[in-house]
């Protein structure tokens, strides 16, 4: 039994927004794999909640009129992984969310929850960062779009205003076309774990597959919020696909990330692994893109 004050069950998105405005103290409850645990811990005990879990309109993956991949915010990780659109255009996202917890957590966990909790260890976040995702946010006033680089304000805080909920995550066509990505989750066991650190890379190679046309690299648990490594990206874009360039690229990520020391893992370990992951992830991307690394 959860220590919930009042549970307001939303029937539509509009209803959810209205409930949030009417009850400004109430918090949003989606899949609950974080929120319910925090109620039990006492951190959110006795609070009121607006429950949006039953809003099936927020589930599913589609290609919208602008050719964006549109992922409904309540789409569970397991459904993202299985979705043919995801598998065709951004398989790495399906692979990344397939590393969250265990299968049962992936059945309940939603991509919206994973990005609205503002947590740096979220397995979807580094990939969404690396693919320049756009958050669709709906309020009583209408819909607005927030590029993911502006989404994270600080740890555990995202750009959601009063009466708003996130309704979809969009991946623009320009972002996913001809891109090949790979995610590495570094954790202490192979299942049922959160990332000690995580790295998601995607590449678009030149037509002759000799150079990196565009490389994007996102990290979780390398900073208080998910981040990109712009210096490293800038360095490698346009460069030839060589072992030396990959080595330099990988080491350069250290200019952009700032992992912390905690009892879960030391900063030095996280920095070291970040470099190894960058190296291995970009090599795997090259392989997926049909390229070859010249050593």
């Amino acid at each position, binding site marked *: *039994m*959860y*220590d*919930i*004050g*009042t*549970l307001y*069950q939303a029937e539509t998105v509009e209803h959810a927004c209205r409930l949030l405005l009417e009850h400004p103290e109430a918090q949003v409850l989606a899949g*609950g*794999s974080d929120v*319910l*645990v925090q109620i*039990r811990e006492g951190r959110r005990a006795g609070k009121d909640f607006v*429950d949006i*879990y*039953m809003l099936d309109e927020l589930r599913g993956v589609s290609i919208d009129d602008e050719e964006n991949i549109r992922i409904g915010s309540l789409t569970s990780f*397991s459904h993202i992984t299985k979705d043919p659109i995801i598998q065709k255009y951004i398989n790495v996202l399906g692979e990344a969310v397939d590393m969250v*917890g*265990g*299968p*049962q*957590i992936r*059945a*309940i966990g939603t991509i919206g929850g994973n990005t609205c909790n503002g947590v740096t260890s979220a397995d979807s976040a580094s990939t969404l960062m690396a693919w320049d995702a756009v958050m669709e946010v709906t309020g009583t006033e209408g819909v607005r779009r927030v590029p993911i680089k502006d989404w994270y304000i600080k740890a555990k805080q995202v750009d959601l205003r009063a009466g708003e909920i996130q309704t979809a995550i969009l991946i623009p066509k320009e972002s996913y076309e001809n891109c090949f990505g790979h995610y590495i989750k570094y954790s202490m066991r*192979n*299942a*049922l774990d959160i990332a000690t650190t995580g790295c998601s890379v995607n590449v678009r190679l030149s037509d002759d597959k000799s150079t990196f046309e565009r490389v994007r690299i996102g990290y979780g648990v390398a900073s208080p919020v998910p981040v990109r490594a712009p210096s490293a990206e800038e360095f490698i874009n346009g460069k030839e696909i060589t072992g030396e360039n990959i080595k330099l690229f990988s080491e350069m990520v250290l200019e952009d990330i700032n992992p912390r020391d905690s009892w879960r893992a030391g900063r030095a370990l996280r920095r070291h692994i970040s470099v190894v992951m960058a*190296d*291995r992830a970009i*090599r*795997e991307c090259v392989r997926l893109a049909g390229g070859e690394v010249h050593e």
Partner: protein
Amino acid sequence: MSKQYKVVHCTINGKEIEQVVDVRSSLADMLRNDLRLTSVKKGCEVGECGACTVIINGEGFNSCIYLAVWAEGKEIWTLEGLTGPGGELSDIQQAFIDEGAIQCGFCSPGFILTSWEIVNAGVEYTDDQLRKLLSGHLCRCTGYENIFRAVKKTMLRHLGKFEEAELVDSQGITEYPEPMPFK
């Protein structure tokens, strides 16, 4: 504050039910306390151990971190539902018995339900895939070995691969390909 209740309508183990629940209840609370389906076990109450797993609309969920009110309109299976009206066991239950996949038994209900889904999928999963599909459950007694055998054998038998199923026992030592430069 006054307590808040709701009537939940759902199908549990093939039977339609209507149940008044305290909205603060987890599905595990409802199944265990209100419906006395005590095969649903609580081991951590935060979705880590998998002992409370039930099948909802064909997918395994941790019922401890699932609100009872979300069961509205859903089709739910607990271990009690796998046994036939005359007490007949499903083949996955029988395999858990025969393979020694049950010791203390506390994780077994959840494991059997997840395994039931796996073997009924009609897919021949690789060993790594099987491990991943089963990885939402913790077990401290079996080292997962005999559970793995039970699931793999039953999966193969479902696919008509009876000879392969018999070979599962002898595949204890695994030959691995040469290490990749990275993985």
